[in-house]
């Protein structure tokens, strides 16, 4: 769910092809392959919608990427303890992040990105020593942030990363852009997080394949008529040491991976943001993920 | 051509002579009044420009020359 920027603007190109009765507009944004599946009759309409959402995805990427200089995230992260005023859209995202921090009992934390300095989930065995985790933990914790809309101030050394919300947010923004344009039924899919603008007309439902974690595992086919899907968990991102598998979901309270987290959770919800947040919250529950999901009124698929 | 240079010199002199003139920012109460704007009524100015453009051989000066014919 990181927003990795494609700094090279030449990568910002759009491809469009017709397959299975629908237009597929493809581009890359936020480190993921992005796709618009669209039932438009004309190629020009499909292209226009793809361009519309690609521009929006790239706009959000440029705004929230922690790899780009000069954007609002960079201004906050380089403020060196000074207050920074933010625009309305960023303020909305920060308000949302604050709500999630409270709902998750401090487990969902946009300041936890600095833990990446000691945790590198590359499939290797580089588990950090407990002292370095403790050292970095002083820079983690939304409660240390003074957020008074529209001004944010946090102690020197802390960083925020809105990448955990950004992709789902972009999916929902793009879907609603298409709806306000009265575009043909479309499915917005950014790297597996997706939303349907409405029920498709040429078939009963949108067929969504959720990849298996391992090559031998079958894809899971989901019929989506309306709403959105989001998946948390990535089987490729883990560390293995002394037979212990460390998943990439980090608990910002302990600084260590959440024990016994499912390998992946897919959630269906009204919006992609909701789906993504519930799946992330469930992941953070670790062994209690399924119990948590059962208590929530959501459609979920959980893989262990 | 000489006449053109003459005009340019006049404009430059006017602007050069001005650098020390003026008022303090808090002394603009009178200048801020509607009736002290260089064009107080854009519509009246446009009407006049159009009438005189149609009836005389000169036009513009204040702003652009104005287009359209509406001649005779």
């Amino acid at each position, binding site marked *: 769910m990181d927003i990795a920027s494609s700094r090279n603007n030449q990568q910002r190109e759009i491809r469009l092809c017709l397959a299975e009765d629908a237009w597929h507009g493809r581009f890359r944004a936020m480190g993921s392959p992005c796709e618009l599946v669209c039932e438009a009759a004309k190629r020009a309409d499909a292209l226009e919608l793809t361009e519309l959402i690609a521009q929006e995805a790239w706009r959000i990427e440029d705004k929230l990427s922690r790899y780009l200089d000069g954007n609002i995230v960079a201004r906050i992260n380089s403020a060196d303890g*000074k*207050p*920074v*005023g*933010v*625009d309305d859209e960023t303020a909305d995202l920060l308000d949302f992040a604050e709500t999630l921090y409270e709902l998750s009992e401090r487990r969902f934390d946009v300041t936890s990105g600095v833990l990446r300095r000691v945790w590198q989930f590359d499939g290797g065995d580089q588990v950090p020593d407990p002292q370095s985790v403790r050292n970095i933990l002083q820079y983690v914790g939304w409660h240390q942030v003074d957020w*008074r809309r*529209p*001004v944010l*101030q946090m102690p020197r050394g802390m960083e925020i990363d809105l990448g955990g919300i950004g992709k789902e947010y972009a999916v929902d923004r793009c879907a609603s852009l298409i709806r306000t344009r009265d575009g043909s039924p479309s499915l917005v899919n950014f790297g597996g997080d997706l939303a349907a603008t409405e029920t498709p007309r040429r078939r009963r439902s949108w067929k969504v394949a959720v990849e298996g974690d391992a090559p031998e595992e079958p894809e899971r086919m989901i019929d989506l008529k309306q709403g959105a899907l989001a998946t948390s968990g990535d089987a490729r991102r883990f560390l293995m040491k002394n037979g212990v598998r460390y998943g990439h979901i980090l608990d910002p309270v302990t600084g260590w991976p959440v024990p016994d987290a499912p390998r992946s959770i897919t959630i269906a919800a009204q919006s992609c943001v909701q789906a993504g947040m519930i799946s992330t919250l469930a992941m953070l529950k670790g062994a209690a993920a399924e119990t948590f999901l059962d208590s929530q009124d959501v459609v979920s698929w959980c893989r262990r | 051509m000489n006449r053109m240079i003459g005009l340019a010199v006049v404009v430059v002199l006017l602007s050069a002579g001005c650098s020390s003139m003026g008022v*303090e*920012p*808090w*002394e*603009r*109460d009178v200048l*801020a*009044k509607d009736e002290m704007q260089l064009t107080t009524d854009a519509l009246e100015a446009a009407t006049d420009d159009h009438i005189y453009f149609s009836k005389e051989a000169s036009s513009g000066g204040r702003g652009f020359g104005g287009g359209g014919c509406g001649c005779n």
Partner: protein
Amino acid sequence: MTNSLFIKIIVIAWALAVSPIAASDSAPSTNLDLSEHQGKVIVVDFWASWCVPCRRSFPWLNAMSEKYADEGLLVIGVNVDQDAGSAAEFLQNYPAKFLIEYDRGGNLAREFGVQAMPSSFVIGRDGQIRAHHLGFKVKRQDEYEAAILEALQQEIVK
């Protein structure tokens, strides 16, 4: 304009306002006595009834004044109108929930080196100018607010 010049200006303003000699002077610089508010962060906002962006700035100044009052923010709107009537009329239309002072002769405005209307100066708890801005743009409110918050958090440098 450099910060040090501002410091000097503030010192002058203070001296004129605070010292008994200045107070009995026939031409005091201003009625504004900043020393009363020592230790607070003060936003000094120069405004005039005839200034259009000033109308936009008042709701924001009101909001700041309320939001940060507990943390020691004091907003002072310095009116530079020549006649009290127009200022009063303006205040009826755009009510101020902060302190209004009057600077008829523009002495204080001159000492602050005011370049345009409105002009806002954020004075730190130590009496130094921490930030200032010319004009008022709604789209830059967040920057202005960040500057105030920054000043509020600065410790007095001894």
